[in-house]
């Protein structure tokens, strides 16, 4: 079976239809390229063919992109010369697309050739947009839901089949940059306005046919004499400023941590100074360079392949029937409960939002109203949509309203007794088969489940704040939690379009278990006299959205103090004493509670704008004369989190390393370029990690001690993905 078929008709048009077997959206493969190439050869050689139309056999879409396994395959097939394999494979793709673009024209005079149109029924992404760009004219169906663009940068690569070079030459470096560097995707109308496509049409096929038969001019501007790149090349005055700014902005926006953006910009810069055929060769060299970078491989694995696998139920218990949620009860209409109600109603789920009195419940519902109002102001929503959404949410203090719910999510005060009482009261009302979930972030699920008379139906569904923005949901299995509860939680998370991870019950579960030591390590360095800017900047340069000091101010100092006190109470003598607690308690006593009190590790003005680090801290903890190396600070910040991930795996809290990596990136922005904490260990190598943690432990304390698992893996020189990847994922 082939993904490309061609039909020639009586009018002299050869129509090539792309229809990937067994997929709802087309994806490109190596065989696909070969088939496409053969059809193009045939059409160009056939005197009866006047022109060609390339289109999709899928309704509503042209193509979703490249089968990312192709990249792994090219690498693998090249044996011990993977760069050669990738470069040559990429150049073969260029050759096919360039053949389409040149379409048999005379290389010197540009005479001859056959018009090749691309008809796109809708979404055209990645290679699914690079192929159209190589055609002579693009006709896109008037389908406002379609997305057109290059999402490659979002998974750590860049458009490497000519998309980078062609779009830059079409639009200029400045105008192309949001599409290339930010992965901006737009609907057909916006794509036309931006110059990405030529035509938006209600009947793109007949328009394309008419165009093909009109003997149109087909030579691309960059193949004509006198072509000038829009906006100027780097050594024209305007172009100089563009490239100067672009290099600087890519540098600081990526904090120097993401190789793909720099490689992309290099391909653009170097390519803009040479003719097209040389430019695509340069593009292929940088593309290969990015693909050879372990960061790209890790990013593709975590952010594309494994994220999607988890969303599609990779860890869902087998054999449990569909558990789609129809009616959800949310207990507690505070910030978390209100957010949960919002995202659930957005997914079309009927929601009962409970709080102690009507006013409190209404306040929670008002959150959704305010959210939709913002959407309306930004023209992203309509008053009708707002009404439809609000009509799904019933705000009430009356527990009887929970009758008929098939899922409850409890988001009340973080107190075991309060939660237990709620559990009992609610279980008296809800159906027997209803699943009960707690959104606790700190209390053990197994403990909370004790209040339930159906503890196999009791589970943790841990949201992050703000609920509507955060992409991850952490599902926690208590000791007694049954498969149906897990399936329910997973099906619910899929309904609200977030990414789930499923972990076992242990203190702070998985995410907070890793975040808390990271934040504490930052605070601890402050007590040692490390400059606060150095700590936060070190974290930012690792690709974290904010540094640990700033993060503590944002989440509030008293929350940190509360967690420390509660943990100490729960752990008793086992609690590791830390100077970071002294610092947090000191700030709490000073009334510097963080951003919310306009004073914390930072000073703020009356409007809440951050002014700078609070100099007063230096009086209690004087700055070191000699500041530590950046790398030392970074390794302390990284290992404080990563070792917890290893311990979570070791202790069985994590059952699947994919969840450890995907969860870390989505929950707390763990260095996305690394692919996650376990991927990071694979990049630096377990032997180095074991050696370095042993040194850090000797210098800074037990918390850096090398976990037994890591030690063992270092001795055997193993990687996490080599040893722990689920079978299907090993190839990727």
């Amino acid at each position, binding site marked *: 079976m082939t993904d490309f078929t061609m039909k020639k008709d009586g009018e002299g048009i050869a129509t090539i239809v792309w229809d990937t077997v067994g997929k709802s959206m087309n994806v490109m493969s190596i065989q696909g390229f070969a088939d496409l190439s053969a059809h193009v050869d045939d059409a160009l050689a056939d005197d009866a063919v006047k022109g060609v139309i390339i289109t999709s056999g899928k309704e509503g879409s042209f193509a979703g992109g490249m089968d990312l396994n192709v990249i792994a395959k090219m690498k693998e097939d090249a044996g011990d010369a993977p760069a050669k394999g990738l470069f040559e494979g990429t150049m073969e793709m260029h050759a096919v697309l360039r053949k389409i673009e040149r379409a048999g024209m005379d290389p010197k005079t540009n005479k001859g050739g056959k018009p090749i149109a691309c008809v796109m029924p809708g979404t055209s992404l990645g290679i699914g947009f690079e192929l159209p760009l190589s055609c002579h004219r693009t006709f896109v169906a008037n389908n406002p839901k379609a997305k057109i663009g290059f999402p490659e940068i979002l998974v750590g690569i860049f458009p490497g089949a000519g998309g980078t070079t062609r779009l830059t030459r079409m639009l200029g470096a400045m105008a192309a940059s949001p599409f290339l560097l930010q992965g901006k995707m737009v609907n057909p109308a916006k794509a036309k306005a931006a110059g990405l496509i030529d035509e938006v049409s209600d009947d793109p096929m007949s328009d394309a046919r008419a165009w093909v038969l009109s003997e149109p001019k087909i030579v691309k501007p960059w193949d004509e004499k006198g072509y000038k790149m829009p906006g100027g090349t780097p050594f024209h005055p305007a172009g100089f400023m563009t*490239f*100067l700014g672009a*290099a*600087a902005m890519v*540098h*600081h926006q990526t904090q120097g941590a993401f190789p793909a953006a720099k490689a992309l*910009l290099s391909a653009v*810069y170097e390519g803009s100074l040479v003719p097209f055929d040389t430019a695509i060769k340069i593009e292929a060299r940088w593309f290969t360079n990015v693909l050879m970078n372990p960061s790209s491989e890790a990013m593709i694995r975590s952010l594309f392949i494994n994220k999607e696998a988890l969303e599609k139920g990779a860890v869902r218990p087998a054999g449990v029937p569909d558990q789609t949620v129809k009616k959800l009860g949310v207990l507690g209409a505070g910030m978390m409960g209100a957010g949960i109600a919002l995202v659930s109603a957005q997914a079309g789920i009927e929601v009962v939002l409970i709080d102690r009195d009507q006013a409190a419940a209404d306040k929670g519902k008002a959150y959704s109203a305010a959210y939709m109002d913002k959407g309306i102001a930004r023209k992203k929503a309509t008053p009708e949509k707002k009404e439809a959404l609000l009509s799904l949410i019933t705000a009430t203090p009356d527990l009887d309203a929970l009758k008929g719910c098939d899922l409850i999510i409890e988001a009340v005060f973080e107190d075991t007794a309060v939660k237990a009482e709620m559990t009992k009261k609610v279980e008296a009302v809800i159906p027997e088969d209803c699943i009960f979930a707690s959104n606790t972030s700190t209390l053990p699920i197994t403990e909370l489940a004790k209040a339930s008379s159906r503890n196999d139906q009791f589970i943790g569904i841990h949201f992050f704040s703000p609920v509507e923005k955060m992409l991850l949901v952490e599902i926690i299995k208590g000791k007694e939690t049954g498969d149906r509860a897990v399936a329910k939680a997973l099906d619910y998370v899929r309904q609200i379009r977030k990414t789930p991870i499923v972990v076992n019950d242990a203190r702070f579960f998985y995410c907070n278990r890793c975040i808390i030591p990271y934040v504490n390590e930052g605070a601890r360095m402050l007590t040692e006299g490390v400059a606060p*800017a*150095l700590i936060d900047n070190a974290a930012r340069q690792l690709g974290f959205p904010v540094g640990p000091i700033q993060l503590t101010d944002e989440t509030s100092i008293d929350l940190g103090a509360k967690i420390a006190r509660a943990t100490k109470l729960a752990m008793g003598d086992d609690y590791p004493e830390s100077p970071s607690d002294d610092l947090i308690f000191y700030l709490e006593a000073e009334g510097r509670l963080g951003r919310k009190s306009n004073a914390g590790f930072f000073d703020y003005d009356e409007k809440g704008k951050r002014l700078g680090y609070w100099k007063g801290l230096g009086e209690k903890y004087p700055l070191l004369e000699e500041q530590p190396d950046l790398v030392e600070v970074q390794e302390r910040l990284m290992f404080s989190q990563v070792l917890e991930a290893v311990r979570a795996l070791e202790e069985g809290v994590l059952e699947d390393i994919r969840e450890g990596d995907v969860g870390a990136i989505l929950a707390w922005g763990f260095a996305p370029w690394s692919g996650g904490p376990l991927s990071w260990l694979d990049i630096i190598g377990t032997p180095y990690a074991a050696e370095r943690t042993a040194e850090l432990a000797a210098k800074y304390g037990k918390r850096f001690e090398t976990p037994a698992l890591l030690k063992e893996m270092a001795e055997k020189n193993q990687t996490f993905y080599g040893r722990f990847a689920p079978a299907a994922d090993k190839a990727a």
Partner: protein
Amino acid sequence: MTEAYIYDAVRTPRGKGRKDGSLHEVTAARLSAVALNALKERNGLEGHAVEDVIWGNVSQVGEQGACLARTAVLASNLDESIPGLSINRFCASGLEAVNVAANQVRGGAGNGYIAGGVESMSRVPMGSDGGAIAVDPSIAIDNYFVPQGISADIIATKYGFTRDQADAMAVESQRRAKAAWDAGHFNRSVVAVNDVNGLPILAYDEFMRPQTDMQSLGALKPSFQQMGETMPGFDKIAILKYPELERINHIHHAGNSSGIVDGAAAVLIGNKELGEQLGLKPRARIRATAKIGTDPTIMLTGPVPVTEKILRDNGMSIGDIDLFEVNEAFASVVMRFEQAFNVDHDKVNVNGGSMAMGHPLGATGAMILGTLMDELERSDKEVGLATLCIGSGMGAATIIERV
């Protein structure tokens, strides 16, 4: 080893490097010729009197392109048998020309050289020659490229210099330059620029603003804040390189940075034989030369390591130097130099500097060396050091002593 001596040093006055500057009408080749002709006439340089003209120049495009050094020789009254060598070490090009010439002499490659340089900043603006370091992503990003003004502000932030300190140094530079002109300290070196008919065009450093005071400087806005803090955000790159800094303190502005001007300077360098041939007495011996590369982001701290190097290599200490010329590219550059060596400002740039009189990039090194030699003679001191910070992170220095 053969010794290299300075026999003479001349310079043109510095014209404002703008369209309304007095030297804007003068081509770079003609401006060069003014200095070359003066050197020829004052020292009787007939025929193949020197081996080469080594000519510093930064923006080597347009009329400064195609080996301006040779063009300048042909535009001057020097004999056509004297070739020309254009060189570019950014702001130190003029000093580097001297150093190269001196080392040619020391190495035995002929008896005499003319070294110097020119920059017509009004006619060939800074940056006209492009350059990859700022725009080629794989170079700019890997090297944390920021423009010089940001670098100057990084120095101020990292080493703790305030705007007031920088402004005070600028006011003092203006005061010293005015005093030096009034007292005739530049009479020996400055040659007026005249037109083709011999009519005067410019005879003094027109960039100077002797009325400058703290208040007038206080009104000036920082020049590099916008590009640092907003578009395209170079401060963030500075902080990537210097993560211990919380933010960059933007203290530099037009008043405490070097002025953009047009000008040329030429120095006659040779061994003992050259003096004997021409009947000239050497005025100073070039005792040592040095150059070095430094961190390209902070970029402008080069005078410190290159001075450390030149002293170390020659068994000298900072106390052996009686007078310093440290190019006033930005106030923080000079402040950092004085801080690093604990040198009193009374010994540095005593006749004012580039903040007051301007910095014609390719010429400045040769100009300040001439100023240093004149001042050693005038104040009857022995040893002087001239040094400049350099773009992309370099430093150059020369030590001279009277003979």
